[in-house]
């Protein structure tokens, strides 16, 4: 009967995820300084060398080389740069569009809201990856196409959640006061509503980083991302796929990088949300 009373412990700081994220960010930022070789130079006589710790590997190429003799490690480092850049762009644009749509739909209401929400429903019912593939066929591969494609993936979930927030914010007193003062609707949306939903917005961003990274990798793998020879992790896996039997490192190593990155981002994001406000966890 008299056992020790249980008091909640605070979650421990996730050091390993933070370390992994830091490493990858540093790789992305300082790629030219860190990469031992250029990621696109081909050295055909050195092709398909295994990583340094395996038999046949050489110290020159720590993670081995691919079918064109390109250093895997260098490509990995530069690939981090591309992946993160796409992620940042896509989250900004996609998140931004979703934020704007959510605020307008939530605040203006009425017919505008109905139409916008029907669009959101359609976006949800229908997987955007397919639209992304269509775009890559019509618009050609490239960074722009990729960012637009991932934006299509993201905007709807942002819009829906933000709209919910705005609906409840709209009822609050400070909004009524602003209207009484004669503020125009755009002004209210910008100066009153927007700052109050930024919290939720940041949470949504952290939730979606992993999604974006995997989306970019998948599109690259399917040949709808940034065209070669620019190294992206998804493309590297696609290129290595054919030689899986005799050169597994070409395809498998980039995947480990992706997995570690997304895992770390998710675990870190969870911890961050728990610290900031456990209520946000339900998102």
């Amino acid at each position: 009967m008299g056992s020790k009373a249980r008091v909640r412990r605070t979650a421990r700081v996730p050091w390993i995820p933070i370390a992994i994220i830091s490493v990858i960010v540093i790789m992305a930022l300082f790629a030219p300084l860190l990469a031992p070789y250029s990621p696109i130079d081909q050295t055909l006589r050195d092709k398909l060398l295994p990583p340094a710790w395996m038999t046949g590997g050489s110290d020159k190429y720590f993670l081995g080389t691919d079918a064109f003799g390109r250093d895997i490690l260098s490509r990995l480092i530069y690939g981090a740069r591309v992946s993160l850049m796409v992620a940042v762009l896509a989250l900004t644009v996609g998140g931004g569009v979703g934020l704007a749509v959510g605020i307008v739909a939530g605040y203006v209401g009425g017919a505008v809201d109905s139409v916008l929400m029907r669009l959101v429903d359609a976006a949800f019912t229908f997987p955007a990856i397919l639209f992304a593939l269509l775009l890559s066929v019509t618009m050609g591969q490239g960074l722009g196409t990729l960012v637009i494609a991932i934006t299509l993936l993201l905007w709807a979930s942002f819009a829906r959640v933000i709209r919910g927030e705005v609906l409840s914010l709209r009822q609050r007193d400070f909004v009524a006061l602003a209207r009484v003062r004669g503020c125009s609707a755009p002004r209210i949306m910008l100066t009153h509503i927007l700052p109050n939903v930024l919290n939720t917005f940041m949470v949504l961003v952290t939730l979606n980083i992993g999604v974006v990274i995997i989306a970019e990798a998948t599109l690259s793998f399917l040949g709808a991302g940034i065209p070669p020879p620019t190294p992206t992790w998804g493309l590297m896996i696609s290129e290595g796929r054919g030689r899986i039997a005799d050169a597994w490192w070409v395809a498998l190593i980039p995947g480990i990088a992706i997995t570690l990155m997304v895992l770390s981002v998710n675990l870190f994001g969870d911890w961050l949300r728990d610290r900031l406000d456990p209520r946000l966890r339900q998102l």
Partner: protein
Amino acid sequence: MKRYIARRLMQGAVLLCMVATIVFFLGRLTGNPVDLMLPEDATAEDRAALTQTLGLDGPILDQFAIFVGKAIHGDLGTSIRMKQPAVDAFFDRLPNTLVLIPWAILLGMLLGIPLGVVAALHRGGLLDRAAGTVAVLGVAMPSFWLGILLIFVFSVELGWLPSGRMGGPAHYVLPVITLGTFLVAGFMRITRSAMLEVMESEFVKLARIKGLSEAVVIWKHCLRNALIPVLTLWGVFVGNLITGAIVTETVLAWPGIGRLTYEAVIYRDFPLLQAVIILKSILILSINLAVDILYAYVDPRIRLA
């Protein structure tokens, strides 16, 4: 209940029209598929010929009218590469994909639901976090990479399983695992939160007052209620599974609609791609409707309303 079904059918039809329209205009307004399909040294005549074949000449609204007219008759275009009506190509391969999906969902549930129950029972403890990490792992691994990894381990190195193509039961293992792994996290998370909520209910207290064993309280009273929200996931997941199939079938050389999509992209087969997208929408909407009906049936509060 009947009114509910009718209403959902209407909504589905509206959504479908919207999607088809968007696909149509998106395809034509964002660029010129013709340019992308032709090799660099194509002549102006080649270009004109292809444009005409694809029906991309003429004012866009005329094109739309023709498109709708044909669509109502079940003609969604002809694949350039395969020289066969897109609809036929789709339905040829559809069963192959459909056969994978239930197994993938089953895998997701068999692993995800117990993980979720365990996590809920040990909330905040080591098992909870471990279960959570396992689930997140399933989402963090890109499924195409998982497929390749599985091929490497089980086909190349161990030689236990075939590396692709359709065939006997052994051929199903890798595709199902590749397709279903990311579902585990979703099922786990929703089971966990649903269980946590249900465990606080008054009727659970009543079950304990009756003196029922803890196992019966959890597995009969709690889980049965917690499963209702889990069913809503089927609808969410169907879309993901159908797109996930693209990658899975590509990696494992499985002849389904996913692989068809990939081929359409790689070979820039614009008519086929357009048709596949519309047909997949119909597929997803239909399955969503079926899931909603099932959900309404399972919850007696809705069924008997």
